């Protein structure tokens, strides 16, 4: 069972992500967090195999969440799904060595990219 933590302050986006990931992957256990701060707590509790995170969130941003997780585990597998399409934000986030940076809205094609990335990186 692959453990995936989804961090997003929108319940709507959490549901969209969950439905699409379940559509393209079996054997996946999803956990949710509503902001970056909760994301760190859930991360430390469950040690997920993959983290899918938004960027603009209350309490602690996605960037701060990624920094904090990468400080604990440089090889943590993080996928960013954000509405922010600014090039410089993408470059800033990609410098943290994330697996992918995708823009919202998440739809079938992007969900398949995520699920393929998870499959490819599962045993690394």
């Amino acid at each position: 069972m692959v453990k995936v933590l989804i961090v997003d302050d929108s319940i709507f986006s959490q549901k969209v992500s969950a439905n699409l990931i379940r559509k393209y992957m079996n054997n996946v256990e999803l956990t949710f967090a509503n902001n970056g701060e909760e994301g760190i707590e859930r991360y430390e509790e469950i040690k997920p195999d993959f983290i899918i995170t938004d960027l603009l969130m209350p309490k602690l941003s996605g960037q701060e969440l990624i920094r904090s997780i990468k400080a604990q585990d440089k090889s943590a597998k993080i996928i960013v799904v954000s509405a922010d399409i600014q090039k410089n934000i993408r470059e800033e986030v990609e410098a943290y060595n994330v697996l992918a940076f995708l823009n919202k809205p998440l739809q079938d094609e992007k969900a398949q990219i995520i699920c393929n990335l998870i499959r490819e990186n599962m045993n690394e």
Partner: protein
Amino acid sequence: MNKSSIRYDILKEVFNISAGKAANLLSEITGKKIILKIPDVTILDRTKSNIELTDYLPIKFSGALMVSTISFKENLAGKANLIFPAEKMKTFIQLCLNEEVYDEDNLSLDFTDIDFDVIREIGNIILNCILGETSNLLDIKLQYSLPEVKVYNQITFTKAIYEKEYQHILVLFITFIIDNTEIEGTIIVDLALQSLNELLRKIDLIEADTYV
């Protein structure tokens, strides 16, 4: 074409491209064609009491408005608003959730937390697209606030648009219709005029590249 017209033309075109991308995303979300109207750009002086922002809007809203807002700062400061008539929001939410649309049951203005969450997130995606594209085209970094959703009447909305600290605001606006739904929306981006120098500097760079 004089310098001022060229700048105005470039700014309008940058906004047009950004709005086009945002419309494409909205079409992807709702599964409907989005019909864009021609964008416009104007500078308003808050001290002139006879100015009504709603006079500048191509569509005349009569009832309550549902407004998603993102503020931004850093190299430019201002707010971007996605505005819909509140009475159409239940239909809009059903479209976004890919549910069957029942128009006759949809006029209620009793919104649940889930409704607000959907509107906030859709507003976030659309406004991020329009601002992000503008930021990319002009090479200006923006830092966003968390998105907000509020229901206004016309008067409270006009007051909210006029930031007290800004005497002049540069307003970019565009209206659109979601095909076959009678849902008409508007995007308004208002910039503090203190941002205008930075904006004009970037536009002049584009002009210099284009008209060599």
